[in-house]
């Protein structure tokens, strides 16, 4: 046969037969797959302010005596991604290495929280959690691990209250929002965000998810679900798939005012790069980030392009700045096998060297 297609009718029939077998297997297996659970590590609520709660993860081993490690996650998804399931848990690995790990859970804002601002999120909630941890540890500063938008929050918070942060780790955190490959930022540039928030109030999660899916529409809406056929006969893989689906679409609505400030200052004005961010009345000066800083980015990240994260290098005041490029994407950095091997140990090793 000449041309791009090197298969005959028999090959196509065999392929079809294989698909049908998968469908039949799936029909037997799928009804038995219960609603998936998530969160493998026991955790205890140690502090709260409104819906925002601080959890301490309970490990089997003893703490290595290092400062508590506070994970600050994004507002757009739930933080259980860091502890998704057995064997796919950043928290599990960090605990096993002796870190004392906490996570801040933002909860699900409702319309009564529409007027929460970035000042509330950083100087009320993050600071409240940090103060609680400091009070428990003799007033000593904490280690901060900020992920994605939580990384941006951590950068701002640490710049505003540098004496409260001993070491700062950021993961897939955007800093330069105007890199040419940042599709989300590209789209947001001319959106009238005042009109947007004044109209919607809180930003519905479904709307945000629709935007994310449109970043790679054919891969995320079509190919991913066609690929499901490959695992219809594998219960474990199906459960993993469903668990990930749950996390992706289990998204809180976003508090309107905080969204307004974030889009304007970060997405539209690229304020971190230009030094124009203000949280409440306080300017954020990244040069005040003089603590040791580890910046982890994902080399195939379609949401936060590597260049967007790496821009941090030239903006901070610390002379102890390290970067770690992870070979994977924005999601894989939490849950892939490679991530499990590389990321927690890198964080632990880096922190231990600065204990």
């Amino acid at each position, binding site marked *: 046969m000449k*041309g791009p297609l090197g298969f005959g009718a028999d090959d196509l029939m065999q392929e079809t037969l294989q698909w049908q077998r998968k469908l039949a297997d799936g*029909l037997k297996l799928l009804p038995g*797959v219960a609603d998936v659970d998530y969160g493998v590590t026991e955790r205890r609520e140690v502090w*709260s302010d409104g819906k925002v709660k601080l959890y301490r993860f309970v490990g089997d081993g003893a703490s290595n005596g290092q400062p508590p490690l506070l994970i600050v996650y994004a507002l757009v998804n739930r933080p259980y991604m860091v502890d998704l399931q057995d064997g796919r848990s950043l928290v599990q690995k960090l605990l096993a290495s002796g870190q004392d790990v906490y996570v801040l859970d933002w909860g699900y804002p409702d319309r009564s929280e529409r007027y929460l601002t970035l000042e509330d999120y950083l100087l009320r909630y993050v600071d409240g959690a940090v103060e*609680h941890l400091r009070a428990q540890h003799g*007033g000593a500063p904490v280690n901060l691990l900020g992920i994605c938008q939580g990384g941006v929050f951590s950068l701002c918070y640490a710049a505003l*209250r540098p004496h409260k942060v001993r070491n700062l780790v950021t993961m897939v955190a955007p800093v330069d929002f105007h890199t040419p490959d940042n599709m989300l930022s590209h789209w947001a540039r001319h959106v009238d965000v005042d009109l*947007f928030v004044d*109209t919607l109030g809180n930003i519905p999660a479904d709307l945000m998810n629709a935007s994310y899916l449109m970043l*790679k529409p054919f891969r995320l809406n079509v190919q991913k679900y066609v690929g499901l056929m490959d695992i219809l006969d594998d219960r474990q893989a199906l459960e993993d798939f469903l668990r990930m689906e749950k996390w992706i679409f289990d998204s809180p609505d976003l508090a309107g005012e905080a969204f307004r400030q974030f889009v304007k200052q970060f997405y539209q004005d690229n304020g971190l790069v230009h030094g124009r961010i203000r949280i409440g009345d306080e300017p954020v000066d990244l040069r005040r980030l003089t603590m040791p800083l580890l910046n982890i980015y994902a080399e195939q990240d379609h949401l936060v392009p590597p260049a967007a994260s790496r821009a941090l290098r030239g903006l901070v005041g610390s002379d102890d700045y390290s970067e770690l490029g992870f070979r994977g994407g924005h999601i894989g950095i939490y849950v892939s096998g490679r991530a499990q091997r590389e990321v927690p140990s890198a964080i632990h090793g880096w922190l231990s060297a600065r204990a």
Partner: protein
Amino acid sequence: MVNDGGDNDFEASLRRCWEGWQQAMNPTGGTASFPWRESLERWAQLLGTDASAQVQELGARFQHQAGDWLGTMQQVAAGFAGRDSSAAEVAGAWREAVEAQGDAMLRWMLDAARGGSAVTDQPWLRDVAHAVQSGFGHADWLNAPVFGPAREHQVRWQALAKLQRDHQLQMERYVAAIRGALDDAFHRFEAKLAGHEAPGNQLTSARAMFDLWIDAAEEAYATVALSEDFQRIYADLANAQMRLQAATRHELERACELLGVPTRTEMDAAHRRIAELERLVRRMAAGSARSATPGPEKPRPAPKKKAAPKPARAAAKKAPPRGRSKT
């Protein structure tokens, strides 16, 4: 679990599917089409009877995407299986098959542009807008001068209709941009197919064709989505949606006020006051804690390489923890 009846039912469905497939692949089979979609539809129906809600939803997504896109690709592949072909022929057949289905295969993309279930983009509302735009069959009602006791109401309704019209226009621009990306995707698909014409580099399955199409489509889409034109189109659509939604809500609130029903605006005003008061209290508490502690908070100097900074114990005492401690 699926009962025996369900199993048998699906096996019977598969047999019919298989027979249809064999007929489609038979040179004398005429134009019989491969019943992959029907097979998937039956599969999803059977799945729906016993599975959890989450699994059912997943099954529906799988049925939709695997049925539409993969099924169509398989149909195209069947047309060329076992015979000589060129990249242009295959890509042309694929374009024809996709375009023959109209908007059906792009439904999810258009839904996404509408923000999921936007209340202002309901079919009946579009019909009303079309009627309004055509002046209800008479003169241009939208721009007609208004007067009399209902003048102010009519002005608002005209404005609302204009916003609906503008939203439609922006949506059409958006859809045109997506169609442009799709058009480019067909060209890219052909180019990618041409890259597989060399012996030893041929595609060996319909699934491989499908994956190649996805690559082409994503590349084409990314080019459009990152363009300056699309940036403006996207923003114009979002802004038009919001203007329309705001005006629609305003009308609803007017109706609520007439009936004495509390409105969103009133609730928001109360929530704003509460948030501002809480913020004020927090600032006052922080300020009073700072004034109770002598000396300003100073940023720590940059540490030497690998030198651990000293804990700022003094600073830690300045502000009391807020919130509720559980330990």
